[in-house]
């Protein structure tokens, strides 16, 4: 019944449809389109950050040092890619740091009461995924709830449960091999680094090359139209939030491994850093726009910037201000064009041009 197998749509000769037009399915390379990409700006910023870092500390541009720098922000980097999926849908998740804390605390407590380490880790992964499921199902079932409110509830609730389990104490004394998860190397490359490279490849593949990824963009751009086109919006939303929860748990486990212990107050404020990285990477907070490569570069910019400023003994409060300023610039730049085009200034320019 469909037309795709060349079923002829016959048209009367005198009808306007017969005015056949060709519709090109290829387009030529455009230098303008190539240059006007957000990622170039990010790359420039990335180089600037590294040049500054190198000038501050002479040993900065050494492989081992860079790897060490990477380790410092690796727990955030793990969260960046699933967060990108969420923001692509036009949603947001601010409960991730609490999910990290809860999963890690569950792992620590269950290990301390006698569960072997491997099952404790599996339990932590299950807890994280369940937290994501909680957010996802609430959002899918109750359309009038906004993601920021639902995940705010999660943010308070998950860390609250962690606090009840451990109060102000810490849990730890993990087996020695567990420490290697966060600190270990394969050759000269940290295990975490390898994990994140693989993660970036898998997420890049999912987001840019599969039907699932295309549907994410469709939901972010126009959820109603996506639904009318047969996209299972509720299912996809639930899956994405569960993925977020799972990776929050993984990040929590890596962090626990590096710290050697878990406490309910761990990973405070991570969600803001992670969202900042994604938005700086060019993912529109309205959804439906942005590429993984930009997010990768942005992650490194923020990570290295923090590391470099830390070496230079810049107080952490000042680092926060710098990261905040960067983010404002990142959010404003894409809007500058639109703002200028609507401005009085632009209108007077056009009038002058016409006058000449």
């Amino acid at each position, binding site marked *: *019944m469909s037309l795709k197998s060349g079923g002829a749509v*016959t048209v009367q000769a005198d009808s306007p449809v017969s005015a056949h*037009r060709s*519709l090109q*399915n290829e387009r030529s390379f455009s230098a303008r389109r190539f240059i006007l990409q957000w990622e170039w700006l990010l790359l420039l910023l990335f180089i600037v950050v590294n040049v500054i870092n190198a000038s501050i500390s002479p040993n900065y541009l050494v492989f081992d040092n860079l790897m060490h720098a990477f380790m410092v922000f690796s727990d955030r980097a793990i969260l960046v890619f699933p967060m990108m999926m969420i923001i692509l849908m036009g949603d947001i998740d601010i409960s991730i740091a609490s999910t990290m804390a809860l999963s890690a605390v569950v792992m620590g407590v269950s290990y301390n009461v006698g569960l072997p380490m491997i099952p404790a880790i599996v339990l932590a992964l299950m807890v994280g995924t369940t937290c994501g499921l909680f957010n996802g199902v609430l959002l899918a079932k109750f359309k009038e709830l906004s993601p920021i409110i639902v995940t705010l509830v999660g943010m308070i609730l998950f860390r609250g449960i962690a606090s009840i389990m451990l109060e102000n104490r810490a849990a730890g004394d993990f087996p020695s091999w567990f420490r290697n998860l966060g600190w270990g190397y394969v050759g000269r490359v940290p295990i975490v680094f390898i994990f994140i490279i693989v993660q970036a490849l898998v997420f890049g593949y999912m987001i840019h090359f599969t*039907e699932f990824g295309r549907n994410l963009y469709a939901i972010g751009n126009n959820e109603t139209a996506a639904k*009318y086109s*047969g996209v299972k919006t509720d299912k996809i939303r639930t899956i994405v939030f569960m993925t977020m929860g799972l990776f929050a748990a993984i990040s929590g486990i890596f962090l626990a491994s590096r710290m050697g212990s878990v406490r309910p107050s761990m990973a405070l404020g991570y969600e803001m850093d992670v969202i900042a990285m994604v938005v700086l990477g060019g993912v529109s907070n309205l959804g439906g726009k942005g590429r993984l490569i930009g997010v990768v570069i942005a992650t490194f910019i923020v990570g290295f910037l923090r590391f470099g400023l830390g070496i230079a003994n810049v107080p952490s409060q000042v680092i926060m201000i710098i990261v905040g300023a960067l983010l404002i610039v990142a959010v404003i730049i894409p809007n500058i064009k639109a703002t200028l085009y609507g401005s009085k200034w632009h209108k007077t320019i056009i009038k002058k041009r016409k006058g000449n």
Partner: protein
Amino acid sequence: MSKYLLELKGIDKSFPGVKALDGVDFQLKKGEIHAIMGENGAGKSTFIKVITGAHEPDKGEIFIHDTQVHFRTPKEAQRHSIAAIYQHGTIYPHLSITENIFIGHEDVMGPIKTIHWGMLHKKAKSLLKSLSCDLDPHTLVGGLTVAEHQIIEIAKAISQNAQILIMDEPTASLSRRECDELYKISEKLRDDGVSIIFISHRFEDMYRLATRVTVLRDGKYIGCYNVAEISNKDLISAMVGREINQIYPKRERKIGKEVFRVEGLRRIGYYENISFKVCRREILGFSGLVGAGRSEVMQSIFGIDQMDGGKLFLENKEIIVKSPLEAINLGIGLLPEDRQKQGLVLNWEIYKNITLSNLKQFIRHTILRPKKERLQAKVLGEKIAVKSPTVFEKASSLSGGNQQKVVICKLLNTDLKVLILDEPTKGVDVGAKSQIYDIMNDLANQGYGIIMISSDMPEVLGMCDRIITMREGKITGEFAGEEATQEKLLKASMNTIETEDKAS
């Protein structure tokens, strides 16, 4: 001083591709109730918006008491004591009656503009009393009925000293008793010297209230009649009386076997007892007024909204549709009414829009193949003549007709048996309209069963093999394409039962 309070002369208003008003004249006397009638799309709402300043006319003059005025914004019209009550009113459900009445023009005192609530509540109380309504002004508006909302809107208009009150379909969702209430209030306002203009699809409203009626058709002024002197029949022919243009393709196909049937569909509060069938190579039209429940029926069939009862049969097998995906997989496609919100991802390229509903066919080893997508978009787009240089153009950059064609391409990219087209030519210019008709005709000839909802009567008459009319959620008539006339359809779609004896 002339005898007219408000006078409009030769009003023209165009929107991209459509001439909404074409030389419309209008006169309103002081203390008169004046009805405006016409089919859907006749330009009534646009005309009202010109009076209230929401639209600035391209040409024409507006006089109030013989003084020429220009309304660029609704505020300017308000300054001339013109107030409007729209079909979907501007009610704030979480605020009290008083707040709703005085919002935007509260009495304020002192340098920090304190609102004197006590006084406002008193004022609201007396306003409501003058409309013989004894609600407590502190009540939150959210819990009130539609009729009470309207009274509040009227009170709001009076509180702004409105001399000209415009009501758009005021009785559309009121019960019989509530209508009587509204009639009484309107008459009282008239006796107080307020002039009222109202739009209504109900003949009864017009006969009961109006002294004169102005008829519009296709944006043109047809005439102004004294209600006492015009019969129901003459009025209807004034509203429709137009030749069907020869832009519709000839129907020369043999209708096939039944492909889709629904039995006893109902959704409480929206529609009830809906049964119909559609055959292969048939175009079935759904006629009726906006809000008759036609779109709601189709959305339930397509799995967007649930239904409370009824059965669907596709090729004589009972089916259950819970989501649009299931509908598409079974072979039912919907072209939604609002193509910008429901049909297209406007920020996306043409090709991505076309392939969205059936990405499966472009996947190899789980990877999407954009090149194949583009080729398919090219093939489909060229078949129905989408006007665009490449498939990379954003959907937002296309004209209304081309956007609609892209949505049709999207439907054709899936394997369908039944096509449901909801207002396929809405907001589409005449040239593209006739192309869409040709496409529909071709598709029917190929064997699709097509259901078309349309509020454009000539289009329904020109295109459909069979026509069903709906009113207020119920099927009110079924006509074969040849025997249907605009008068018959209009009669079945409108609430004329009460007025027939009066007119004859």
